């Protein structure tokens, strides 16, 4: 085989308290895509930040075409032909497409920006990506897929020879994803070396020639995709410690604790009826836009309902409650922990106690008893195995899996009888997912009632006792545990097979 275009040799990097990388080796070849996979916290982001010039490695060196290079900051990386398509796109919404693309490389004529030339070149690059957006459009008016193409166009225009994609499909529709893959294929044909980071192993097999697996800051294996299997990759990623979780039910399903009748929200939800029992995990499944999240928000009083009743078992009997009061009995674990779930700059302890502050008031003063707050915090950090150097650590510095555990821990501390979990494992790696699954299963075994919303069908099927399928705001089908994947999919897509 030819010489690798890029070699990263023995890269090590430590942050205060963490050895993020412990000697990583990685080769990328021109015209090929290299998949980079690993659990959250395995060091993928750090490694790519080293390559992108965002952080500097403590040890090790980087070679391009056999020559050692120094990467001085993000600009230095760009000069070496390295482009980084970030997961949270590095775009400026109030600026136009052309300004976003050329922000640090405008050509000027007599001190003024030559927008005509810039717009032409920008339109050209976008056209190569099959995108006909007007370069003068403001980025905030673009769809997610178009935004990503703008960012790729920026990479093309600085003649990037190495393009790093970090979870590029997480916010794309299926159509946009297909388009992106076509773009990546054409980039490969032009001889660009692609590094593709993802949690979705299917994508690796679709788009990559080779794959490299990181675990705990080290490369633990990899090779040609043709010679690898999904299961093999998962084993490499998580080591031999955790296997995919399938729940074994321990407790009996008990009496109904939540009964929803005829719930309706104008234009969004129609005639929602279901009952949730003690010790039961009820899976709610539907495609994007089916009204899953909206239902969770209506049940917890975050969105108004037009009609219908919500009954909750309060003191031994089911009683109708007003949705505004629902949060007294229902714990909601939201879909997007960064936006709705966490107070990012605040500490682990404070995030954990947030739903439970009333119970933490001192007996004498109307102030929060910080001693108890701390000890409870510590208790939940231990129970949930939240990996944090200290309780005062701001939550934003934790990995995704640990952040999600904090969200769960908050409600565990409050200890409601009913949980509504909207995509509790979104964006987490296999290991963190398995841990969250275990926590959910344990809750059910402690006779809590759980409404589980998930877009991952395996997760739903592994955990739930019963499934509801939502389509365009209606519950279109109900299935007992053990129903087939195909049946569920058909119901969600609007094919009626069951009533």
């Amino acid at each position: 085989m030819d010489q690798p275009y890029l070699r990263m040799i023995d890269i090590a990097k430590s942050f205060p308290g963490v050895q993020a990388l412990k000697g990583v080796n990685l080769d990328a070849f021109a015209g090929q895509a290299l998949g980079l996979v690993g659990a959250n916290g395995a060091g993928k982001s750090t490694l790519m930040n080293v390559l992108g010039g965002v952080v500097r490695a403590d040890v090790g060196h980087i070679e391009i075409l056999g020559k050692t290079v120094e990467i001085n900051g993000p600009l230095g990386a760009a000069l070496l032909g390295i482009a980084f398509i970030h997961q949270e796109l590095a775009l400026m919404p109030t600026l136009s497409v052309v300004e976003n693309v050329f922000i640090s490389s405008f050509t000027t004529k007599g001190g003024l920006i030559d927008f005509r030339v810039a717009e032409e070149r920008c339109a050209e690059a976008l056209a190569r990506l099959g995108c006909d957006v007007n370069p003068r459009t403001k980025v905030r008016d673009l769809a997610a897929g178009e935004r990503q193409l703008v960012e790729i166009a920026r990479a093309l225009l600085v003649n990037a020879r190495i393009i790093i994609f970090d979870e590029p499909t997480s916010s794309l529709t299926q159509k946009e994803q297909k388009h992106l893959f076509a773009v990546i294929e054409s980039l490969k044909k032009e001889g660009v070396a692609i590094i593709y980071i993802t949690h979705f192993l299917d994508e690796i097999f679709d788009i990559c020639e080779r794959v490299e697996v990181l675990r705990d800051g080290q490369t633990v294996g990899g090779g040609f995709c043709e010679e690898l299997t999904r299961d093999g990759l998962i084993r490499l990623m998580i080591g031999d410690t955790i296997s995919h979780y399938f729940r074994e039910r321990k407790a009996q399903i008990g009496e109904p604790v939540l009964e929803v009748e005829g719930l309706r929200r104008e234009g969004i939800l129609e005639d929602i009826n279901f009952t949730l029992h003690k010790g039961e995990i009820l899976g709610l499944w539907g495609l994007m836009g089916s009204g899953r999240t909206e239902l969770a928000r209506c049940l917890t009083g975050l969105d108004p309902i037009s009609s219908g009743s919500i009954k909750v078992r309060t003191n031994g009997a089911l009683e109708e409650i007003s949705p505004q009061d629902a949060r007294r009995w229902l714990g909601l674990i939201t879909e997007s922990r960064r936006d709705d779930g966490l107070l990012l700059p605040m500490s682990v302890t404070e995030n954990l106690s947030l739903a439970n502050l009333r119970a933490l008031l001192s007996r004498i003063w109307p102030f929060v008893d910080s001693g108890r707050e701390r000890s409870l915090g510590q208790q939940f950090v231990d129970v949930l195995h939240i990996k944090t150097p200290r309780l005062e650590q701001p939550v934003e510095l934790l990995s995704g899996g640990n952040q999600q555990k904090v969200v769960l821990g908050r409600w565990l501390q409050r200890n409601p009888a009913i949980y509504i979990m909207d995509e509790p494992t979104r964006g987490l790696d296999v290991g963190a997912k398995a841990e969250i699954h275990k926590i959910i299963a344990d809750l059910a075994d402690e006779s809590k009632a759980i409404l589980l919303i998930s877009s991952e069908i395996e997760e739903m099927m592994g955990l739930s006792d019963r499934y509801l399928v939502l389509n365009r705001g209606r519950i279109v089908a109900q299935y007992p545990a053990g129903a087939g994947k195909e049946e569920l999919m058909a119901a969600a897509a609007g094919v009626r097979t069951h009533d």
Partner: protein
Amino acid sequence: MIDNKSGQFNLRRIIFSYGFYIVLVAVFIIYSLGATSFLTISNLANILRDIAPLLVIASGLTLVIVTGSLDISVGSIALASAAAGIFLTSRLQLSTPAMILIALAVGTCLGAINGFLIVVLRINALVTTLGMMIALRGVGLDLLGGSQWMVPDALVDFTRLKVGPIYSGTIVALVIAGVAQVVLTRTVFGRHLAAIGNSPVIAARLGVRVRLTTFAVFVLSGFLASAGGILTAAHLAVVHPYLGQGLEFLGVAAVVVGGTSLFGGEGSVIPGTLIGVITLILIENGLNLMGASPFVYPFVRGLIIFTAMYADSLRAQLHGQTRRIVTEATAVGAE
């Protein structure tokens, strides 16, 4: 259904984008009917003369606000630099151009001190310029000895020059505003200001020299503040101890009224800030002609500032909402 919705939103968007033109026109009509001396050539020329200092200062402020920052020391810089200029000129018997140069140089240096504190010592911009606002007023008062100083006749004569009905100061201010607008929209520096206003982190990642650019914009703001100070002094023919007082807030109000977002990232000097300045000056001019009590002015100013800020906040919400609608539409498309 979606089309219907976006139709509604476009209407709202139009109101938000052009709301203050509507206000300006409405105020204009009300005054024309209410005060007979309002709609006269000489009064309109007076209004245009009165906008000059505020327009110059607000031009610099616009550039600062586009970066998502704020400079509330401009009023005091106007005083301190004008005071320094007049003080040295009379002590050392210097010429009028020397006085202008000294004032501009002092303003530039004070802006540089702002920039240094914010960029190098990393003190919050609002706190930095608040401190400078308080301290420099003291410096200015000290230089003036608490009394007002006559401005050289040459400068006063210059501002009495007219092209048609338009005073020379207005022309200077319009040229400065025009240059600021070109700098903002057509130069790399200006686009970098907007990039920083979007997100300093992203801008830095893309190779924008965030700290240097931020420093430069505060220097520029100081420079234009002193230019505004000179214009004010020339209009009044004196440098008095209250010069520039309140100008910083009036300036911010004018910028926001002109549609530049306090959240940073977008805005314009022309037409935006120019319209804002004209609106504010026009309202006061009309109040004056209708014989309103001078004590009403601060109240009206406050009201305008609130309204402008509220409109800015609504605009920001509107953009948040349109973004959500876009993602919903794509989600439906995927199904």
